[in-house]
């Protein structure tokens, strides 16, 4: 059946969507990805003319939470489009074929679309002892990943396993678990960390590649800026409580029931870059902090080894004042005696000054860094 693959627009037409629906979708997509209205035309053109991108999805040392998160992607038409728009030619989780036939499907795509296919990797690669800690079809993961990467147009490293090694690379890393970017060079690699990453972030990364035919802007750690340029702390709806020095002291205490800041319960929001506070989880239903548990920092490298989860951070980059969180707690206690209203006003004013000062310092140092780049 060697015929021209259908474009995204043709696919949508056949599924009964009108041109108007299509344009609406393109505009929505533009908004989702965060480009300006003038860019919508580019999306429309891209989707009218593009055949389905061949995609191969590998599973190595992982738990499949990334695949599960991916199928949770919620925006209605997007999940359909992703299914219809990419050609997912190899994925151990969902594909019908098994064993030999699965390997054949993989090999055919790697041969037929050499240099054109997108390679998605879920899981880290064990590099110790000839790779015996992860074998598929009798071959080591290391062997497979090197072969597949050599013909890939680009690689997306899904989740913390593929992008920074995650749990199996935490101390003492018994199998030599290694992220993709430390094994493969010469092919663009997009790191999409998180355990797992948010479904819509995964879908958004794919959509970006398809619609614009280019790698999204990445930060210094190879992560799409659109999703990883903000600290969870800075986008957290409980941030005003932090600023006001209002902290949960124990799970389910009176402060927890009022949704105060979870910093003292070990929240890693201040050192974690992710979209949890913005996009939230499972179509915006909630995110860890909103549901009462601190962020465990799952999108940051080495988060498993950064101290016990319930021990609060002594300090974190950019803000010196956090070392005083316990002191602030004391201030709050004293102020409560003096009267709740008075305490709120006084701590707020006092803290705001400190925070503003810290933010100014941080901004100026960040700017300097960017100039250097």
């Amino acid at each position, binding site marked *: 059946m060697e015929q021209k*693959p259908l474009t995204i627009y043709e696919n949508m037409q056949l599924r009964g969507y009108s041109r108007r629906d299509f344009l609406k979708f393109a505009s929505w997509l533009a908004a989702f990805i965060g480009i300006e209205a003038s860019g919508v035309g580019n999306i429309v053109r891209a989707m009218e003319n593009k055949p389905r991108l061949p995609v191969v999805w590998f599973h190595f040392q992982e738990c*499949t939470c990334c695949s599960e998160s991916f199928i949770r992607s*919620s925006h209605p038409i997007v999940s359909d489009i992703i299914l219809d728009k990419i050609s*997912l030619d190899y994925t*151990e989780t969902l*594909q019908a074929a098994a064993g030999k*036939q699965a390997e054949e499907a993989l090999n055919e795509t790697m041969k037929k679309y050499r240099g054109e296919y997108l390679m998605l990797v879920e899981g880290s690669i064990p590099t110790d002892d000839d790779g*015996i800690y992860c074998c598929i079809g*009798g*071959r080591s993961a290391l062997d497979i990943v090197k072969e597949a990467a050599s013909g890939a147009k680009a690689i997306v490293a899904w989740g913390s396993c593929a992008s920074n090694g995650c749990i199996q690379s935490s101390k003492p890393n018994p199998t030599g678990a290694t992220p993709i970017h430390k094994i493969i060079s010469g092919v663009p690699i997009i790191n999409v960390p998180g355990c797992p990453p948010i479904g819509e972030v995964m879908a958004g990364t794919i959509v970006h590649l398809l619609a614009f035919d280019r790698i999204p802007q990445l930060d210094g750690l190879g992560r799409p800026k659109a999703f990883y340029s903000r600290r969870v702390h800075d986008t957290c709806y409980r941030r005003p409580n932090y600023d006001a020095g209002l902290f949960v002291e124990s799970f389910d205490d009176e402060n927890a029931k009022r949704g105060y800041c979870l910093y003292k319960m070990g929240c890693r929001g201040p050192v974690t870059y992710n979209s949890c506070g913005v996009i939230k989880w499972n179509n915006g239903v909630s995110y860890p902090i909103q549901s009462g548990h601190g962020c465990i920092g799952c999108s940051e490298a080495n988060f498993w080894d950064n101290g016990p989860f319930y021990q609060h951070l002594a300090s974190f980059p950019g803000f010196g004042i956090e070392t005083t969180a316990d002191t602030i707690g004391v201030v709050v206690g004293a102020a409560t005696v003096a009267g709740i209203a008075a305490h709120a006003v006084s701590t707020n004013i006092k803290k705001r000054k400190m925070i503003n000062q810290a933010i100014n310092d941080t901004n100026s140092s960040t700017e300097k860094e960017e100039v250097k780049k």
Partner: protein
Amino acid sequence: MANRIVIDPITRIEGHLRIEVEVKDGKVVDAYSSGTMVRGFEIILKGRDPRDAWAFVERACGVCTTVHALASVRAVEDAVKIVVPPNAELIRNLMFCAQYMQDHVVHFYHLHALDWVDVVSALKANPNETSKIAQSISNYPKSSPAYFSDLQKRLTTFVNSGQLGIFANGYWGHKAYKLPPEVNLIGVAHYLEALEWQKEIVKIHTIFGGKNPHPNYLVGGVPCAINIDDANALNAERLAYVGTLLAEAKEFIEQVYIPDLLAVAPYYLDWGGIGGGLENYLAYGDLPTNGYADVAKFKFPRGAVIGRNLNEVQEVDGKDAEQIQEYISHSWYEYSDGDDKGKHPWVGETKFNYTGPKPPYDQLNVDQKYSWLKTPRWKGQAMEVGPLARVLVAYASGSTEVKDLVGFALGKLNVPAAALFSTLGRTAARGLETMLVSGWSKEFYDQLLANIKNGDTRTFNNSNWEPSSWPKDAKGVGLTEAPRGALAHWIVIKDEKIDNYQLVVPSTWNASPRDPKGQMSAYESSLIGTPVADPEKPLEILRTIHSFDPCLACAVHLYDEKGTYVHQVQTF
């Protein structure tokens, strides 16, 4: 001369599974199951804060997310004597139920259905006929001729594009596919509907645990606070959201999943006599209705059924050193006092010993060690765990709910009770227990609301939260039922840190290699006698293996790469 067939990778599962079988005269005469990936959780956990363990072990599996976290918090609570408040138990139950409903539906449609449903055949279906059949089996609203006609067009376009994606190279047209094109089309339609629906039910995890996959748990309770008069805690809006999701789930299960199961099964009744395998079944039970300590009040009872004798249930005790033991005679590990002894998980000893072939390899040396999975046994016997085991243990325990439901299904399909012990029985049991769980979830929900109404909003017990309040030495076990079967974690705590942590998971029971006596575990045993019409396309093997819902990532143990057992890990 027997013909060796190797299927690796087994797809539509979680993890890395390899099956090697010997086929003679069109039937499987020998079978070997091997887990080919290892990560090393247990070694990584040593020396860490026991209160953090749930987050680590939850990452054992992202498909059956939540279940390891639950087993872990229970193990720690058992060790340091914490009893969680009733609301925490109810919220854990609700998360458990949501996990079952999502996982079982995804298994049926996305991991198992393509073994029975021929996607390509659906192209030949008559949409009007399809609609008639759909409406005759269910009152699900999406069943008009236009709905099926649109879907068929979409499918035709997809196939004609030449890019078959996830459907490429399937065994389409295999003579073991028996469904008429119309039923195949219904199957494909609901494959897509289920994909949409599954992302809804997990929002229950997001509400209580902040995200899915991998929602947050907490030793001593649950992290979400209840405050019906605040925007930042569980209030009427959040709870109503849960109620709506539960109602929608019940609808989907009753209008789509169960009718499809009962519509497909009559075409495959011969599978009621294939794939039975072991005759012993083990369930730890779960869904407490009067606290975790009161096992007699669990919705899923605990116990063992031996030799398919449904008149007797034997008592199971996770703490009894003689009951549950792990063997390694065919696993890539070694024990200090010989590889033929079994070890209870509290004294579980592990030393890595890979003796398999150096990759790339064609065949494993199955006479020796051939898997990263250990081999668990209950009183020396191989046990099947999972939905069928749960249903049988409940049946044998005298649960009228279960007896009625099983009776209804057997009557509907007009098959004898013996058909339960089979590939078909396993797949049917999964559907039946999903129905039960969706009904129970409403009871837990109503109870939670009643508690709050009566003024009890506690979700966390602070009493032994601080490690300084713990004894110097403590050990505990946490038992639960993962969707795939009996799951338990054993913890040994010393000086406030994890000294030993062992997981014995469902797929270890089912997918493990042989024990020192040569007894097969469930996968291997169930494959014996399975017909294989075309050795090049071993569809029948996939049917039986998939009926267990394999999930391998958590089944493998892990150890130090140089073969030394690391006793103490400096983590901070």
